[in-house]
């Protein structure tokens, strides 16, 4: 799933490890989410959204909205 995690992380000058520690996952998990190789569960997506103090849809791009825009 496309997302803005890398941008939000970069704005705070956090490394992947910094973010991983804040959301209590491994650095590899952060990397997999950022690169769109893994879609986080809803609880983890909420944890990420709460950390950045933004709604989930501002961080993760809905695949259905993305495809409807393409149409």
């Amino acid at each position, binding site marked *: 799933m496309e997302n803005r995690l890398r941008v939000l992380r970069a704005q705070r000058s956090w490394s992947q490890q910094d973010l991983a520690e804040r959301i209590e*996952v*491994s650095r*590899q*998990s952060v*990397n997999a989410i950022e690169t769109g190789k893994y879609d*986080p*569960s809803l609880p*983890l997506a909420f944890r990420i959204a709460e950390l950045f103090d933004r709604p989930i849809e501002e961080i993760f791009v809905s695949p259905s909205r993305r495809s409807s825009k393409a149409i």
Partner: protein
Amino acid sequence: MIRTAAWKRYNWRVIWLSVAYAVFLIGAVYSFKHALVPSVLKYPIAILPAIPIIGIFFAIGRYLVEEQDEYVRMLMVRQILWASGFALSCATVWGFLDNFGLVGHADGYYMVIAWFFGLGVGGMVNKLTVGEGGC
């Protein structure tokens, strides 16, 4: 594989179970070879080496329960699915080859060996498809 706290616990369990397996196997083989086993204990001693192997399956299950990192857990589940598919495919192919008299009969526990080998195959597939942390 990513070394989480749950992974470290799993590793220790597997190490202890492997030691137990070696001890039980050597003990059982020695006992049978030297006819030290009373007939009433033959079945329990024969299955003694199987118990730590069953313990390893339990340890894998505990790992899946204890692993807090959902991505890492997903990787392990993928490995287990690959292992199961690989082992069952091997057993199916071997079974038919055996039926038609093209290969010798294989002991049932080779299925477990194929399953553990399949875990390695799953790790490689993870590595190739999702990259770092995949093995």
